[in-house]
């Protein structure tokens, strides 16, 4: 699975991470809907950590599209309210 963190680049993650990432994504949507900023921050850092730990950076000579695009690391809660809606970043 190819994941991009906006502003940082693309990473290759094992397909087995998709479920975990999707779960975190869905919970992040719930946190945003409830206006729970602290909860969102915690989930968001877990998502980034998953990519950092399991992800392998893609080189510049790979021309592939990402299956998931995560917003910029420093996303504000207000911006998150525009991104983490409905089915989240990852459609179910």
């Amino acid at each position, binding site marked *: 699975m190819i994941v*991009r963190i*906006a*502003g*940082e*680049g693309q990473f290759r993650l094992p397909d087995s991470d998709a479920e975990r990432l999707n779960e975190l994504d869905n919970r992040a949507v719930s946190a945003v809907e409830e206006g729970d900023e602290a909860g969102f921050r915690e989930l968001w850092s877990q998502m980034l950590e998953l990519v950092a730990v399991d992800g392998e950076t893609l080189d*510049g*000579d*790979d*021309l*592939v*599209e*990402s*299956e*998931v*695009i*995560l*917003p*910029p690391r420093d996303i504000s809660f207000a911006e998150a309210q*525009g*991104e*983490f*809606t*409905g*089915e*989240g*970043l*990852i*459609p179910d």
Partner: protein
Amino acid sequence: MAGLGGRMSTVFKAKISKLLDRTEDPSETLDYGYQKQVELLQNVKKGIADVVTSKKRLQMQSTKLEQQVVKLDTQARQAVSQGREDLARAAIERKTVAQTELQSLDAQVTELESQQEQLTQNEKKLRTKIETFRTKKEVIKAQYSAAEAQVKISEAANGVGEEMADLGLAIQRAEDKTEQMRARAGAVEELEAAGTFEDLGQLGGGQDDIDRELASLGAGAQVDDELAKMKAELGSGGGDSPQLGEGDSKAGA
């Protein structure tokens, strides 16, 4: 992917995919696609240059604010030595606002600097991708049938398109940020310009916009402390001028 993916596609991605429909002949599409990518790369470079220019303007604004701080400090001291506590207080209040703004401006400029570095790095990465596309298109032209080539072109072009869209978005964010900072710093500068020493004399006890602005910033306690300090300094340096400390228990220490 909703949200970001959708927003990004409106910027660069659409341009990239649109150009793919332009011709029937895959090899023509490939050459045209490459040419377009190179053109878009120029836009990206221009965007980064704009961010750098804005950053420089912010640094100039920061220098101006530094000068204001020095000026207001001098004015406050003059007011204290003339026994005009009201004027001194007003000048110190403005100085405090300017100092606070200066600190946040400097921190933001530093942050912008690291963003600029990241943008430059990503621009390099994009250039590599476009170069890869150039090589790849020759392989595709040579090895694939027209139908297969279309698929391969789409994949490769979308990969480049996504990279370009991402960088475009990052530039947009950096530009928005400098715009906000500039507006804020500009507002404070205006505030300072309105608060020159001449105007201070007319302030009296009345409340004007500036006073309300200052009150909302809650500079009160800090102003008291600084005023007391200034009085003590000037009091000890200026020999016998006990009347300055009159009515203020803090200055007695």
